[in-house]
């Protein structure tokens, strides 16, 4: 599931592409990160994103495109099991960990700390 070298190179490449889009296009980071997620979802639907994760490990599973892939994969896995309703029941199956962790940590950090500056 990826070596240190492939994780570094592929993860770095994702960020390099992101930076070029930040600097060269008039889109905001919000637009561009949403674009990454959409691209990840489409690559996930085609079964390509998992191959990238096989190759690069955390280099492909940490960039935000992986979120789109995991959403699409969850929906597809449950759809294969239960039909159309599975698209809804499976949507957050694989991304639940990340979303829940981000919500919980953010909530408690907000209670614990005050904004700086």
């Amino acid at each position, binding site marked *: 599931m990826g070596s240190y070298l492939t994780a570094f190179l592929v993860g770095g490449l994702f960020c390099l592409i992101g930076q070029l889009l930040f600097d060269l296009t008039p889109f905001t980071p919000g637009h561009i990160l949403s674009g990454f997620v959409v691209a990840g979802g489409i690559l996930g639907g085609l079964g390509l994103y998992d191959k990238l994760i096989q190759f690069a490990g955390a280099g492909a599973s940490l960039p935000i495109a992986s979120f789109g892939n995991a959403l699409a994969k969850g929906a597809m896995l449950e759809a294969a099991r239960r039909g159309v309703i599975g698209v809804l029941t499976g949507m957050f199956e694989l991304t639940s960990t990340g979303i829940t962790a981000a919500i919980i940590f953010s909530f408690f950090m907000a209670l614990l700390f005050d*904004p700086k500056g």
Partner: protein
Amino acid sequence: MAAVPEELKITAEEYRELARKEKPPPPLLFNALTAFFSGGAVCLLGQVIQNGYIAFGFSPEEAANPTVVTVIFIASLLTGLGLFDHLANLTGAGTAVPVTGFANSLTAAALEFKKEGLVLGIGSKMFSQAGSVILFGVVTAFVVGLISALF
């Protein structure tokens, strides 16, 4: 307030165009390399954490989950401590594109609107930036899932 003469009025669109022209061009190569190395470092650190979890008995498939949680925790904590902004200024997309950026956007929004209260501040505003990532991710996955279910 005195009325602004008609010839001095510009639309928001024209203002953005002007602001874009006047802004000095970003140092493209420097920014790109910084993003590459810092983003690579974030993912390398993630891989170290992931291999750590594998050594602790997680299967390679399962290890991605606690890895994401750990990275989110670090990013969220750095945001709470007020350090993430400095890091983001140095690294640009290097910390914005990995899940660190997602965690930061939630925590930063929660902190920023804390003064407006638990419900209307933290609760309502937490997703003010991350919301679009979730929305478009879900819409894409819905279409992809529907296609896979029907064909």
